[in-house]
């Protein structure tokens, strides 16, 4: 089935968002965001796949060998880096929330404080 890799990416995204919507713990929510984001890696690599091709690196294969699309791989690298930094920043915020409010449950973080 030709659509399966793309559908897998969509499924991973929905699973991640479902986790965020129903989360009772902010660390868990940040983890779910990372899952939802990783769906973009699967989608991009699926788009760039080429049958019977190798990695886009010509250090041990002759130039002209069929390779998979390197553009989406570079995009995935950017994606991974940005994802890691966003996760790190969110986890720092979670630590501060735990310190200032004494809870990690988003349901209990209701009041606005100035």
């Amino acid at each position, binding site marked *: 089935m030709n659509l399966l890799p793309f559908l897998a990416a969509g499924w991973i995204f929905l699973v991640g968002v479902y986790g965020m919507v129903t989360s009772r713990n902010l660390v868990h929510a940040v983890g779910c965001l990372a899952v939802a984001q990783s769906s973009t890696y699967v989608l991009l690599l699926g788009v760039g796949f080429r049958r019977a091709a190798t990695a886009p690196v010509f250090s041990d294969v002759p130039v002209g060998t069929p390779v998979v699309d*390197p553009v989406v791989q570079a995009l995935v690298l950017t994606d991974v*880096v940005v994802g890691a930094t966003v996760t790190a*920043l969110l*986890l720092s915020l979670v630590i501060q929330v735990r*310190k200032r409010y004494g809870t990690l449950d988003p349901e209990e973080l209701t009041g606005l404080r100035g």
Partner: protein
Amino acid sequence: MTRRVRTAFFLAAAAVFAVAFVWASTGLPAFGTAHHPYGSRAVDASVRRHTANVVSSINFDQRALDTLGEESILFGAVLGAVVLLRQARDEDREDPVPGRVLPTTLLLGAGLLPVTLLVGVYVVGHGQLSPGGGFQGGVVLATGLHLAYLAADYRVLRRVRPLAALGAVDAAAAGAFTALGLAGLVAGAAYLQNVLPLGTFNQLASGGLVPLVNAAVGVEVASGVVVLLAQFLDQAVEIESPQEDRLPPDGSQAPDDRHPPEAP
């Protein structure tokens, strides 16, 4: 919004998304197709510029300006984490107590630490030739250093990790990327254009600007990740929060109230 309403909202949105996504997927180029117009052009451009690793060529040459933005995001995130996780006025610093370490763990850690660092340097250094590059190798370098924490203890890590210097190195490497782009302007070309001699294909000195930018990114990622992890480790190991046990579980009490209510 109650949980039930929220879940209902999610299910409705998920259904819409699922239908739209499946519909869009049918319009994508077939999975595994041999026709990749952008990919083929990127491969051609990379071979013309004598860069064996096409992904590195795209990141550090063809899309170098985008990577400058990406690297700035990383720098900004490290800066943000340092500011967010700094020691607050009402927090104390406590020296960590060394734990007991199995001699075999210590031996393995001490043996693997230099090997891991060497692998990191290799992955950064061969970024223009073989899979890997500044981002990947930088993370290997930074996490490899933390073997000192895993296999020994926190005080050993602090000794092998000059945090203040690494912060400065992080900033300098981020600036070096920006400055390297000026080489193009000096040569009368565009910013970040690859104007350096291209060297021999598949040799260490090839790709022109690529290995230099790659090295700057490697140094920046390595020092940035060490600084970032240090903030989290500080929170876990060193910083003592005085209000930990004073807060009621519902969080209703203002945390900056320094006088807990007397028990009746």
